[in-house]
């Protein structure tokens, strides 16, 4: 049973079974999460990628160079560690090229994302897919939340001063995040995935030196806190700019890839969960579009 990669946020310790899915098995030590995943899911900060998921075992032990349960042991070397920080900068891209690729990404999301995903934020026609009273309430809440989250952004992000963020901007952003946080369908609600994408986008803008987003990242993260371990974990990682292999590939391709490669990477991401990949991608693309617009 081969181990192909282990995330750099996986800490040694003893973990017990949290939840089991077809392509992923989550373990927790009470505070932290690690996940055994198949190659289709791929590398991530807390992912241990194994060729075959073990069907047995309710405990996992992570050592310095091995991972084991009662039935299997996977050894690994430091070369197999997946480095999760998003280390790209928009300065590496030609602006017109990057904008074009972002538009390709938007178009694919609007055309191909799951009908119940947040891609309606990119193409309002998609709201016709939300027909029940509940679904329409969901759409209105998301639209209101996003409007508040980003209305603050246009002003605040240019004048962000980590020392003294404008109260009104912070309050608007926090109100918007609270509308989105925990909102929607799926095990990790759509709103949380969108917020994660937003945080990753902010980290990219920050790393590129285009905007000082440190304060904003803090407001968003603290407003979005959840008692759901899965949500809490991926939001923390997004706040720190730690991304999965698929997300990293996507950003890399946006910076220097052609349309076909961008399409391929976006579609890879769309395969995450039912709408999780699409919601995260929507959060990312909306954030970066607004961040680079003048």
């Amino acid at each position, binding site marked *: *049973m081969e181990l192909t990669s282990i995330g750099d946020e996986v800490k040694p310790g003893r973990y017990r079974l*949290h*939840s*089991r*899915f*077809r392509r992923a098995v989550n373990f927790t030590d009470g505070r932290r999460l690690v996940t055994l995943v198949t*190659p*289709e899911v791929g590398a991530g900060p807390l992912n241990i990628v194994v*060729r*075959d998921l073990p*069907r*047995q075992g309710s405990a996992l032990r992570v050592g310095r160079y091995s991972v084991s349960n009662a039935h299997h042991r996977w050894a690994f070397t430091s070369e197999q560690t997946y480095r999760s920080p998003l280390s790209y900068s928009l300065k590496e891209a030609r602006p017109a090229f990057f904008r074009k690729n972002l538009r390709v990404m938007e*178009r694919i999301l609007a*055309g*191909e994302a*799951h*009908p*119940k995903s947040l891609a309606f934020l990119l193409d309002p026609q998609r709201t*016709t*897919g939300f027909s*029940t*009273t*509940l679904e329409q*309430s*969901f759409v209105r*809440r998301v639209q209101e939340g996003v409007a508040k989250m980003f209305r603050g952004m246009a002003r605040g992000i240019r004048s962000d001063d980590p020392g003294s963020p404008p109260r009104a901007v912070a309050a608007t952003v926090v109100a918007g995040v*609270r*509308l*989105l*946080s*925990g*909102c*929607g*369908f*799926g*095990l*990790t*609600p759509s*709103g949380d995935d969108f917020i994660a994408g937003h945080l990753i986008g902010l980290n990219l803008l920050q790393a590129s030196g285009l905007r000082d987003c440190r304060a904003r990242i803090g407001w968003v993260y603290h407003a979005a806190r*959840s*008692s*759901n*371990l899965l*949500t809490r974990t991926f939001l923390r990682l997004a706040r720190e700019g730690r991304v999965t292999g698929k997300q990293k590939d996507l950003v890399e391709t946006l910076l220097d890839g052609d349309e076909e490669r961008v*399409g*391929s990477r*976006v*579609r*890879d*991401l*769309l*395969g*995450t*969960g*039912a*709408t*999780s*990949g699409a919601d995260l991608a929507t959060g990312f693309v909306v954030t970066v579009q607004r961040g680079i617009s003048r």
Partner: protein
Amino acid sequence: MTIKGQIRKGAYFDSVTLMRVGRELSGLNGVSDAAVVMGTKSNKAILASSGLLVDALKHAADTDLLIAVKADNEKKLTSAFAKVDEMLRSSTRKTETAGEDRPGGLEDALRVLPGANTALISVAGRYAGGEALKALQNGLHVMLFSDNVPLETEIELKQLARKKGLLVMGPGAGTAIINGVPLAFANVVKRGTIGVVAAAGTGLQEVTSIITNQGEGISQAIGTGGRDVKKSVGGIMFLEAMKALAADPGTKVILLVSKPPDPPVLRRIAAAARAIRKPIVQLFLGAKPKAGQPATLEEAAHVAVALARGEEPATALQRLAARDADIAKLAKRQAARRKRGQRYIRGLFSGGTFCAEAQVILSEMVSGLFCNAPTGRGRRLKDPLKSRKHTVLDLGEEEFTQGRPHPMIDYSLRNKRLLEEAADRQTAVILLDVVIGYGSNMSPAEELRDAVRAASRKVCVICSVTGTAQDPQKAGRVAERLKKAGAMVMPSNAAACKLAGEIARDLGHAH
């Protein structure tokens, strides 16, 4: 109206399951609204604004699963919650308990099932060749469902298989029926005396279904993968399958289905056919057939049936020609209902073979035909997201399927495109293939219903249903429900395409 809510504590289900359960719940008869969501503050607020936040749900925690249903009466509520329990239980069984005894690899599997003679392999392409090789070395036939297997690997596997007297079906073989057992995407068919060799997955499904629906049956249906009949592979498995059917006492008629093989392979197939003493029906889609030979999958199936009954093939072809005359009359009536400016056909196919057959048929009837997977006279569509003139799309191609389930399983992309095409003022006809059977979407009519209904208010929606009455979805029921939604349902893909072509011709854009 009655509303009920339940909390499931500590229940972790993946998003795909939750959304499927929510969707099916909302679609139940008598249910007007439903929610299957995590118990976060935001979701409770949404439930409240929709009138679904009953007292039982108010104290749910973030990690609780909430189920809320609004239905006509108590009986419908009880039935809805029973359905939820069943769906969630079935999902748990699949991911947890069923997996506990699953063998870890081929060797384990052979210990559990020492009498197995076939391995069905569906892993990522870069690993599939290795697994197939192991299976052959252990004396097993192989069905290679996996795609993206390198060409050299395919050739190596098939040469080894030929040496060992084994079959390798695939790569990319989605369909086979061996000794009456449907493998992967396949239909429940009658057992009988017609053996099929197909380098075309949905082609195999179409002919085996039509043969069953006509009252005859299938001895074996062997899929070889589309690349087998190319020069590089040389038709290795196509020829081995022909040999196997020639030697099979249960097979009296052999039916060959493929896109046109490369010329050297075609010559080998012709030579092999001459040496077989059983009647052989050949359908190479897109190749010009000889007089009296079938030109479509439907014709090939009917000819095979005629031969199995000891009848003249010409009789079968004449019956279909008479049927086509009726199609022309039907087309006139449909064309008269179109608005000014409506003139184009838009085909949205989940089966690649059906898309190819559509191009073959429509190229003879209309001009300006575009496709994302062109064959014959079809021209390449530059942007698969934007139709042009007459357009037929293979939604199973990579640009549509990367990162998402195959369109035979997940209709969401096709439904979206259906509505977009119907909204285009120049669209007159939309063609849809609905392929049922094992592996396909279990509620095809329900999932297509809303989009078909909306589209058929503006355009003529023509469907074909590939499958049998014994399939889990039941072909007759699917057809009825599609008709109720406003679609015209034809008995085959070929008939559907001919109707579409006649309508387009009548609308004044003949070839």
